[in-house]
């Protein structure tokens, strides 16, 4: 699951967890459109929920909500930075 850089794919993150997208070769497979929607390295995302039937999933990033299939979330890698029940980090990238 977790590789040597501590990156896991977005689809493997549990619901409610926050993560930061990381710069990793797996992101190469990311579609142009998902990048244009702001899924770029350094962006904070939060996994909000899975759909009632288990797929797709809903994430929050850059102040909005996006749903995407698990197969697409597979191509997005992220480092988990904690579980939140209340804090709403809709910040973009932080340096």
């Amino acid at each position, binding site marked *: 699951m977790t590789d040597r850089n501590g990156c896991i794919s977005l689809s493997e993150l549990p619901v409610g967890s926050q993560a930061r997208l990381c710069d990793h070769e797996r992101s190469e497979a990311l*579609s*142009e*459109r*998902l*990048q*244009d*929607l*702001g899924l*770029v*390295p*350094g*962006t904070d995302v939060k996994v*909000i*929920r899975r*759909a*009632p*039937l*288990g*797929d*797709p999933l*809903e994430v*929050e*990033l*850059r*102040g*909005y*909500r*996006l*749903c*995407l*299939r698990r*197969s*697409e979330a597979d191509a997005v890698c992220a480092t988990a930075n904690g579980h939140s029940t209340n804090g*709403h*980090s*809709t*910040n*973009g*990238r932080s340096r």
Partner: protein
Amino acid sequence: MTVAAAAPPAPLRVALVGSPNSGKTTLFNALTGARAKTANFPGVTVERREGRLTGTPRRVAVLDLPGTYSMRAETPDEKVVDDVLNGQLAGEELPDALLLVVDGTTLRRSLGLVTQVLQRRIPTVLVVTMIDEVRARSGELDLDLLGRILGIPVLGVVGHRGIGLEELSCALERPEGWSRPSILPPSDDPDDRFAWVDAVADRIGVTNATRDRRTDRFDRVLLHPVWGIAIFALTMVFLFQSIFTWAVPAMDAIEMGFGALARGSRATLPPGILTDLWTDGILAGVGSVLIFIPQIAILFTLIHFLEDVGYMARAAFVVDRVMGWVGLQGRCFVSLLSSYACAIPGIMATRTIPSTRDRVATILVAPFMTCSARLPVYTLLIAAFIPAQSLFGPVGLQGLVMLGLYVLGALTAFGSAWLLNSTLLRGTPSSFHMELPPYRLPTLKLLAAQVWGSVSAFLRRAGTIILAASLILWVLLAFPRTPVDPGLDPAAQAQAQLEGSAAARVGRAIEPAIEPLGFDWRIGVGLVAALAAREVIVTTLAQIYAVADPDDFDGLRAELLSDPAFGVATALSLLVFFVFALQCTSTIVVMARETGSWRWPAFAFAYMLALAYTASFVTFQTARWIL
């Protein structure tokens, strides 16, 4: 030399650009007074809406471009925006100025689109909408600073309350005075683009905004693993129930009204071919178009409302998994749902689907969904041949058969999608991503404008074809003229004329082919006529069965029942035929335009006809054997 009167200066052309859900349409309606000329962009079927800026002395034409998330176009809608801003759409001039609309609550995403649009070097003013929501959630944004950073004028508005609009209208009149960026922000590489966006967002005070609490609360219920599915199912039941409880009485009223009008005309006008043309051709034709309006208006009101509120995106999110089983995706669901009103808007709604494969699959199966044109046919045959007995409680056999036809259509659509995606359209598995916008209540004005847009588009597209078809049909039924004995009663005269008509010859020619389905030449005429539009068969049968008044539903029902050649087996077979066959000229034309070739509509027609023929054959032979 004569001095020509000075021509009025050409209007300034301003185009609105922005993401879906950015408040662009609300702003368009506020600026133009919701009066828009709708047409298509040249050469494509993407809707083009243009209005005139109200309350300003200078003529300013405002063009509403489709919503787009990125200038790297993914859908036909987005391609139009890209082409227009490049001046590459033949027949569409490059706009003089742009009104770029972004939702203030999603600046960390939408400023990415801003960097891309600025590369086109068209004078641009940036409008930040929903600033009231931003204020309530996270405080002030420094829009002046944003303007200085971007080098263009930036204005904050609340479209539906009219806040900031006056200033915007003033600015729109003088794009010559707008500041232009001296250095363009990075736009090519998404990583660089969003690094710049984040830096700017931090400076102008885009904070870690608290989420919209209302949306959170609604989603906890509407997307709940159990309640979410239950509410989705209830919404669908409500949608279909509305067709029957609200639309059917209105449809009956329209039918009765036109019947009365036809009877009145016959009573007052002298008998003759012109009177026939007026009552059987024109009145019947107009009536058969107007009869759809109640159902289409109700369905579109509900669909647009669900869309504007933000529920449609959730519905797509909920059903995406199921759509995925047959190789489609959540967005296709919205399109298939619209097809219950009419396949044409359903097919046109596929323009927001990114993958060509998903679009084509959806377009091909949309005509299986039970559209409003099938309803009059189903109603007539079920009322005539299915006993009105109660099965349990309020559930009657007639209602159950009707439901069965709806379900059969939907199952066939899904089965066909699966078949297509595993054969002709096999390729990369489809993907699905979609913004889930915050829940927002649309204004009545916006909703009314959208519903009118959909209904009038239907009238333009389908209405003209249906009307033309019923006129052609009338000619085929009325010519060549057969000399009839004037001593006969009018119904017998009409029947004699019909039997010698061109239409009857066509019916007799195809009779051998349709006999195994339980159809005689008279139904054959109806089927040929229904190629133009399905419900035309009802008026055709009325004429063939020489019901004195073509809109006399009960009279026609009685005639059908008393015909020994028209039994229950034939009725069931005919019902099944209508579930499957692609009998709609307008749909075929729209399919060709949306897929860019006649190959797909030709395939769909043949596929659906083969399916209809086989299913009718099996139904008739089985029913005859059992009954």
